[in-house]
């Protein structure tokens, strides 16, 4: 219990609750089961993206191509649906394409050592171009009803099927990350890559795997997007990468890697998904959405970075001080 309270994601959960309460005070009509559950259901896509990118962030890297990957796989889902393809085909293509993008990112970052922000910015551009190619530059729409039915399907107590699946994936990812040997490697690599190398962990392949997983989750997000909205514009998924990164950071995952977990990422995703809804309740136009996301992202990252830098500096100074303390007790040595 004590550990539970100390967990980094606990403060995110408190933040979420406070957010709900403030909204409820401004507009009591928010305090309805359906409004609150709606915030969670709405977070499905962000949750998937956040789990994926959390793997990458935990290894100390970043991936800004996930929004584009989501857009591409969403468009492909739509195109397959137009051809009366099966849902299995759609999901397989989404995950496959996502994995491929992740592989390219992983090779560029882990193997060739390109800074991850730059490399994934490049793949982001390529994928955005591919969306235009596969969709002929037009919005993909009018696909058959088969997948639309999934999009808003409610499983129980107003919780959608997709959100249930997303939560199940959060649970699996959390267990993998904290309980399995290979899963712990992700955090180890982000915590101290040199140390990870020294205990025999393959740093490069761990990062590669993180990118592949990240791409696969973005692909799943694309499927959810297509079935939820029933039409895919060429700009679909634009800016989702910032939302997913913000979700992770809000959930207590450190951008320098090695710290945080999937539960935090999932809570962060709900916060991000709720903000635009809550703005409506509070009476602000949703056009403030991106601005507020950006501000939150910067504030949290800066505070986190300052705290980190301070602790590194403190330990450096402590180490240096202990050196001079040594000579005081040991004194000179005679030949």
């Amino acid at each position, binding site marked *: 219990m004590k550990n539970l309270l100390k967990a980094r994601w606990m403060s995110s959960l408190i933040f979420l609750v406070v957010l709900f309460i403030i909204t409820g005070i401004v507009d009591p009509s928010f305090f309805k089961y359906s409004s609150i559950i709606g915030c969670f259901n709405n977070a499905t896509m962000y949750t998937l993206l956040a789990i994926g990118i959390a793997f990458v962030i935990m290894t100390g890297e970043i991936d800004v191509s996930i929004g584009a990957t989501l857009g591409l796989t969403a468009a492909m889902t739509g195109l397959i649906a137009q051809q009366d393809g099966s849902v299995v085909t759609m999901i397989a293509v989404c995950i496959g394409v996502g994995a491929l993008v992740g592989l390219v990112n992983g090779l560029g970052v882990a193997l060739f050592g390109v800074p991850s922000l730059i490399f994934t910015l490049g793949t982001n551009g390529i994928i955005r171009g591919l969306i235009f190619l596969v969709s002929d530059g037009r919005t993909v729409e009018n696909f058959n009803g088969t997948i639309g039915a999934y999009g808003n399907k409610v499983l129980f107590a107003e919780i959608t099927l997709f959100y249930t699946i997303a939560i199940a994936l959060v649970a699996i990812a959390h267990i993998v990350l904290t309980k399995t*040997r290979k899963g*712990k490697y992700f*955090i*180890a690599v982000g*915590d*101290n890559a*040199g*140390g*990870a*190398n*020294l*205990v*025999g*962990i*393959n740093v490069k392949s761990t990062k590669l795997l993180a990118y592949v997983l990240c791409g696969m989750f973005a692909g799943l997000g694309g499927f959810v997007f297509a079935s939820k909205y029933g039409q895919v514009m060429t700009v679909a998924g634009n800016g989702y990468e910032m939302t997913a990164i913000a979700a992770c950071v809000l959930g207590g995952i450190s951008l320098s890697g*090695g*710290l945080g977990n999937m539960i935090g990422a999932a809570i962060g995703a709900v916060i991000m998904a709720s903000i635009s809804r809550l703005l409506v309740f509070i009476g602000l136009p949703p056009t403030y959405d991106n601005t507020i996301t950006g501000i939150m992202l910067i504030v949290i990252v800066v505070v986190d970075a300052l705290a980190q830098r301070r*602790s590194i500096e403190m*330990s*450096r*100074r402590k*180490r*240096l*001080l*202990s*050196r*001079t*303390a*040594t*000579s*005081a*007790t*040991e004194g*000179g*040595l*005679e*030949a």
Partner: protein
Amino acid sequence: MNEPLNKASGLTVRGIKKSFGINVVLKGIDLQVPQGSVVALIGGNGAGKSTLVKIIMGIYQADEGEIYMGEKLLKLGKPSASLAEGIYLVPQEPLLFPNMTVLENILMGFNEKEADLKKRLEKHMEGLGFNLNLQRKANTLSIAEQQLVEILRGLMREAKVLILDEPTSALTFSEVQSLFKVVQDLKQKGISMIYITHRLNEVFEIATNVAIMKDGLITLEGPVENFTKEMLIRGLLPDDAEMRDDGSGNYKAIQYEGVEPVLKVRNLCGYGFADISFDLYPGEILGIAGVVGAGRTELISTIFGRDKTLNGTVELDGKDITGYSTKQVLQEGINFVPEDRHYHGLFKIRSISSNTTSALLGSKEIGRIDMNRRRQKEISQKYVDDFRTKIVSLDDLIGSLSGGNQQKVVIARSLSTQPKVVILDEPTRGIDAAARADVYNIIRQLKEAGVAVLMVSSDIEEVVELADRAITVFQGRINGEFQHDEITQDVLTSASFGIKNEKAVEQ
């Protein structure tokens, strides 16, 4: 070296060579670590000790040579391979996962069940008398505790060979004692150790064998009983120590009488050093010798305003400049040529002339808004001529120059502000012999121009050659002060390694 190596037990290293670019670090290392022995590996800075153990650990790959465990030829090249062979390196700065608990840190990378591992770990801890809360976060541990965690990691891997890279450099006296106890216990259990150290008295305290490394070769090796401290010091000196011209031939004695020191440092304390006092006179070169990690770099960084002063004073020309920021220190007339040119010193993708005059950007000398390119070039050309810097054009990128010529530009830049004091940190590191002579000349020119030069150098020959006076720093404190005629390689080497030795070692 000629006798066949007995590979019956323990670790045997044969003919290891390693180069980084054109820089040959290891020139064919033969080393034997018999089972249950503690081989102390000593040597000056840059002798290649860390490179050697990193090759054994698989972090670097050797260009040539073989490593045997007993009779078996090992195929190393990545850490996981070395770990599988029972080799474990406890690095100088422990590489723990700061955000994980002690337990997670120790068990990271294992295949077995956690419960079994934990049982084994507890047995090891009991066996060594360690008492450590396994649920503590690694970033709350002291350096000594971190080292214990590293050693436990090695034991958990059933390590047969444990490599300790300067384990005592950050430990207090009592921590050192408990570490030695652990080393003794491990030795009794038949675990072999390579023990890198800068402290010669430790060699006699715990080592069974000793090996001296110099310029990428093991020059002296054998059971510790066959050595005395004097022999080790002599072994650490450069081969041509007696032959070298120590620069006294063309040395011009300095008149100190009636001259006020330009820089007065009194009881200065900071992070990594304590109670440092010295005077620096105009027109002299004061050498600061010591081993890496002795606190010299921290000392001059603090004087230059890059770290916090804890206590004591720094006076420049009678003015108290203690605790000034780097910008203020520069304005007062102290300039700094950093150790790492690439990291702190150069704007690599700018031209030679921009680099030379970059320290003047804040002054009116080269214009505020519309920069006076002609003036920039005049200043740069003057230094290029003075220093005989080999360049094609002042507009060339500085990255296209050789290391020695880059260093000349960096020194030129610090001179362009007409400083009273110039601090040089390792002025010739990574510079070839020819350019080195030029840099020495430049430093002598500075002196003749009346500039006070404070020179930190790990190259003892350099201090002997250039310095008018020298101080040695050992574990953050000054432990020796030498006038020009007292400076010899022996004295400085002894003092750097923490041995008080008034007279020179007999040859």
